[in-house]
C-alpha cells in the first residue's frame, strides 16, 4: 500500500475513532496562495497560484492528529524561466500540547510537483512547535511556528542538506467556528553538485475556515 493510500485510510478512520472516544473533531477548508521558487543554478524559477484543500483534526485531551491535503496549479511567472506545475500534497501531523500556549508537532508531508516534463515526488518529515498566545480574549490568537525538516527526500535529487520552515499568523475562534490566516515559508537547500547548489522555497499565505465538533 502506498503512502497516499495509507493516508486515505487514516482519514476514513477518523470518524470511527471520534465515535469511540470523547474527542473534538474539526474540519477546515483551506485556500492558499503559493509562491514556489527554485534555483537550480540557472536562475530563479518562480511559479505562483492558488491551492485549495482541507484538513481534519482529531483531538483528545492534549494530543491531536491532523490530516490535511491541498492541490492547485502554479503558473510560471513571466520572465522567470520556469514552467507551470501542478502541486498536490498530503500531510499528517501529530500534536502534543504540554502548555496551553505551546504545541509540539511532528509530521510527514507527501508532495508532488507535476509538469509537462516530469513529476517530482517529495517526502518531508518535520518536527517543531507552534506557539499560540491570545491576542484579544479567547477568540483572537497570535500564532507563530517553526519546524526543522530533518528528512527531505526528492526523487532524482539527493536529500536536502538544510530544510526548515517558519511562519506567523492570526487565528480566530468563536464557538464552533475557527478561522486562521498564516504565512509560512518553507526552505530547502540541497547539497552542492559540482558548481551548483539547488535551493527551493515554498511560501504560502493560507486562509483556513471551518468548524469544530465536540463529541462525547
Amino acid at each position, binding site marked *: 500500500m502506498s503512502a497516499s493510500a495509507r493516508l486515505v485510510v487514516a482519514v476514513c478512520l477518523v470518524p470511527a475513532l471520534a465515535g469511540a472516544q470523547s474527542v473534538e473533531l474539526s474540519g477546515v477548508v483551506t485556500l492558499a496562495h503559493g*509562491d514556489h521558487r527554485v534555483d537550480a543554478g540557472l536562475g*530563479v524559477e518562480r511559479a505562483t497560484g492558488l491551492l485549495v484543500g482541507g484538513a481534519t483534526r482529531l483531538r483528545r485531551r492534549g494530543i491531536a492528529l491532523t490530516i490535511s491535503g491541498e492541490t492547485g496549479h502554479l503558473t510560471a511567472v513571466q520572465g522567470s524561466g520556469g514552467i507551470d506545475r501542478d502541486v498536490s500534497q498530503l500531510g499528517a501531523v501529530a500534536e502534543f500540547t504540554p502548555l496551553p500556549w505551546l504545541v509540539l508537532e511532528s509530521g510527514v508531508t507527501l508532495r508532488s510537483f507535476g509538469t509537462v516534463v516530469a513529476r517530482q515526488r517529495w517526502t518531508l518529515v518535520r518536527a517543531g512547535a507552534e506557539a499560540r498566545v491570545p491576542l484579544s480574549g479567547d477568540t483572537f490568537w497570535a500564532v507563530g511556528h517553526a519546524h526543522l525538516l530533518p528528512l527531505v527526500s526528492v526523487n532524482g535529487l539527493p536529500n536536502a542538506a538544510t530544510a526548515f520552515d517558519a511562519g*506567523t499568523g*492570526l487565528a480566530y475562534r468563536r464557538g464552533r467556528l475557527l478561522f486562521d*490566516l498564516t504565512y*509560512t*515559508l518553507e*526552505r530547502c537547500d540541497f547539497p552542492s553538485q559540482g558548481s551548483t547548489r539547488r*535551493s527551493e*522555497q515554498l511560501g504560502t499565505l493560507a486562509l483556513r475556515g471551518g468548524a469544530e465538533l465536540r463529541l462525547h
Partner: protein
Amino acid sequence: MRRRAAALGLALSLVAPTITVAQAGTAELLQQARQLYERLEIERALPILRQVVSPEWPLEVTNAQRVEAYKYLGAALVLRGKRDSAVLYFRAALERDAFADLDPAQFTPAQAGAFAAARRLTFSVGARPIPETRVDPRTGRLTVTVVTTHAAVLRATLRALGDTEHVVLYDGPNDGVREIGWNGLGRDGRLAPAGRYDLSLVGRSQIAAQADSLHMYLDLRHDVEPFEDTLPALSDRDLLPERHPESTAGKDLLKGLGVAVGALAVGGLVASDRLGTGREGRIMAGTATVGGIVAFYYRRTHREIPRNVALNENRRAARDTANAAIRRRNADRVARTILLITPASAPAVRP
C-alpha cells in the same frame, strides 16, 4: 378518793390531745384530726383543726395542709349544724386553693351543699403546677390545667418576658376545671424563642363583681441539633478576574505587531537571499498590524472576560446552591426542635 381519781383521769384525757399537739408534726396532727372526724368525734377533732389553722401554731403548715384543715373544719361544723361558719371555712379553703373540692364518697350532701355555696361566694382562679416537660411542636403541646371556682370569663395568655405581644391560650367562659394547651408557636406561627415566659390567668366572675388573676413563670429552652455553617462568601482568591487590566490593550497591540514583525522576519531572515520572497509576508504583516490595532481598540472598550464571568457565576451559583441546601437542612433541624419547658417560679404567683 375514787372521785378524785376520776377527776384526774378526765383532766388527763382533756390535756392529752394538747400534749400530743405540742409534740406531733402538722401532718400527724391532721391525720389524727381526720381519724377523729371519721369516728365522728367532732368535738375532739375541732380543736386540733383550729390549732393547725391558727396563726399561733408554731410548726410549719403547707398550703395544702391548711386547705385540708379548712375543709375538715367546714365539714365538721356542718355536722354540728353551724352551716354559716362552715361556709366561711370552705371559702377560706377555696381562696387558698381554687382546686379544692369535697369527695362525694366521703362527705354528706349537706356538706357538699355548703361547699357549693362557698364556691358561689368565693371567686378565685388556679392552675396546677407544670412539671418539667418536653414538647415536640409538630406533634405535642403543653397542657396546663386551670380552674375557676364558679362561672367566669377566663383569659389565659403567654408572653415572653420583655415582650409586649402575647399568645392567647384561652379566652372565654369557664366554670370549674379546664385544660388549656399551647403548641409552642408564637403569634407569627414560628417556634417560640427560648427564654422566660409569663403565663397569665385572669378571671372575672359572672356571678359576683369579683376578679382574680395569677401568673406563672416558665423557662423555655430549645433542644435542637447543631447547625451546619453556611459556606463563606467567595473571596477574590476564589474568583477569577472578570476584567482585563488596562495594560492588556497595549499588550494586544504589541502581540499583533509581533506577528507582523515575525512575518517580515520570516521573509527577510529565513528566505534565501538568492530566491527572495513574495508579497505574502508583507500581506501577513499588514494584516497582523491591523489585527493588533483592532485588538487594541476592542480591548479598551471590552475589558470584561466573559468566560471568567461565566465561571465565577457558576462558582457563585454552586455556593448559593450549597448554602440553600444547608439552610434547608438547618430549617429541618429547627422544625425538629424540641421545647424544654421548666417551671421558673412557684406554681402560682398572685400579683
